[in-house]
């Protein structure tokens, strides 16, 4: 799978490109530096992640996986490296929203859960089919942050292997809104714009960095860093707005 990048009006778009199902042939589905570089682009205020064609991503390509299992140690290293990509997305210092059409399963679901927001079309489907294949989610799915999905829902979906539709996903708090397919990308971008349009980039990045710090540092450390970020933002603001 390849990732395609574009920026339009400060809103970035990352497209998972391996249609029709945008499957992952390799856990390291992108060069981590390439992904980080895009997310740190000074033109960027927010990012939409979406799949090429009719589906978001149905997860790992099982044939590739079977081949890779011949060298489990190498596969383990690749998976550990690939998971870092999800951390890069999760800890991006601009808001990241997944725009989901069609199937969002397995590693695809894990990618969507790493995003800060999820919007989905009426025909979208979510699930962890790994257990049906004698596997378990191995791309951070079992540790999906409670910000995105409740523990009960997560356990239920993983163990049962069942798929849920957009309405149930919304009720479970997994997605923000169900949108008509034709409006999915536009409305997802509009949601992000309403959050970031009036905010300078340095302010957005400081807020998100501080929010992420609570997951990376102890409470006291995170609070100290918030103060430092706060003063940095204030300094920049007063410099730019000197009367």
């Amino acid at each position: 799978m390849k990732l395609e990048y574009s920026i339009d009006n400060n809103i970035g778009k990352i497209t998972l490109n391996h249609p029709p199902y945008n499957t992952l042939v390799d856990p390291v589905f992108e060069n981590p530096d390439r992904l980080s570089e895009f997310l740190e682009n000074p033109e960027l205020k927010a990012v939409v992640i979406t799949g090429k064609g009719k589906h978001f991503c149905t997860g790992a390509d099982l044939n590739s996986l079977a081949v890779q299992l011949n060298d489990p140690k190498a596969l383990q290293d690749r998976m550990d490296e690939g998971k870092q990509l999800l951390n890069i997305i999760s800890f991006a210092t601009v808001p990241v929203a997944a725009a989901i059409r069609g199937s969002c399963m397995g590693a695809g679901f894990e990618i969507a859960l790493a995003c800060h927001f999820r919007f989905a079309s009426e025909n979208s489907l979510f699930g962890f089919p790994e257990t049906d294949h004698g596997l378990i989610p191995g791309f951070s799915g079992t540790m999906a942050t409670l910000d995105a999905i409740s523990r009960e829902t997560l356990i239920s979906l993983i163990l049962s292997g069942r798929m849920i539709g957009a309405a149930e996903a919304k009720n479970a708090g997994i997605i923000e809104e169900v949108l008509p397919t034709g409006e999915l990308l536009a409305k997802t971008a509009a949601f992000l714009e309403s959050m970031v349009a009036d905010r300078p980039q340095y302010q957005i990045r400081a807020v998100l960095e501080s929010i992420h710090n609570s997951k990376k540092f102890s409470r006291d450390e995170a609070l100290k860093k918030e103060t430092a970020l706060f003063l940095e933002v204030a300094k920049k603001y007063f410099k730019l707005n000197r009367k």
Partner: protein
Amino acid sequence: MTYSLKSISAEPYPDETFVKLKTVQLEESDGIAYLTLNRRPKNEMDALFFNEFVWLARDVLPNLKVKGMIIQGSGRHFSSGTEMAEFKNGLSIDQTPDKEKLFMKNVASFQILSNLSLPVVAVVRGCCIGSGMELALACHFRIAGPNAMFALPETQFGLMPGCGGTIRLQELVGRGRAIELILTGRSLLAEKAREYGLIDYISPNKDLLKSAELLIRQVISGKNPGMAVSGRRYNIPKFLKSP
């Protein structure tokens, strides 16, 4: 008495221990401490407030022999937060390391509340904004009247929450919602706040104190801890976690 009394009040309070400062007062009744911001109507948090609150938090609160604490504002509002004009004036002139130390003392004083191993309940009437909301976030529980209003509007003023808001809000409402609320700075009424998990219960204004006292009794009785944490997805206070 278990702490030194700094009483400026002329009225005798024989059965209740009482500390009255310029911006905040502390009373004890029936084993519960009541900390009231007492500069109605706004109960604003200026430099004088933080001076007094830092002293209270460091020298008085940890030594109280009470079983619970209630934090509230006098009059119609909890607190309007920092006075923006004075604050911006101060920040634009003075960006020294001393300022950083001062802000860290302020946020540390809120953290002292969070670290108390007795239930601290914020009782919110009316407006609870900016650092006012950050004070409420530092408490273990939040109960509000039906017309209470919550916001972290700092980004609208070119700044960002600097008293723990970026760290604590997500623990209650989840990361995506916290990103959205802080970047937009929008306000929430009580019902929405409860739906998002920002507050625990809504009670009519006249019943708020009774509800808070009942909550404290339930929590410390240990008989019904589930009630105190039901509906919470995140942030169960430490003292409730272990038997």
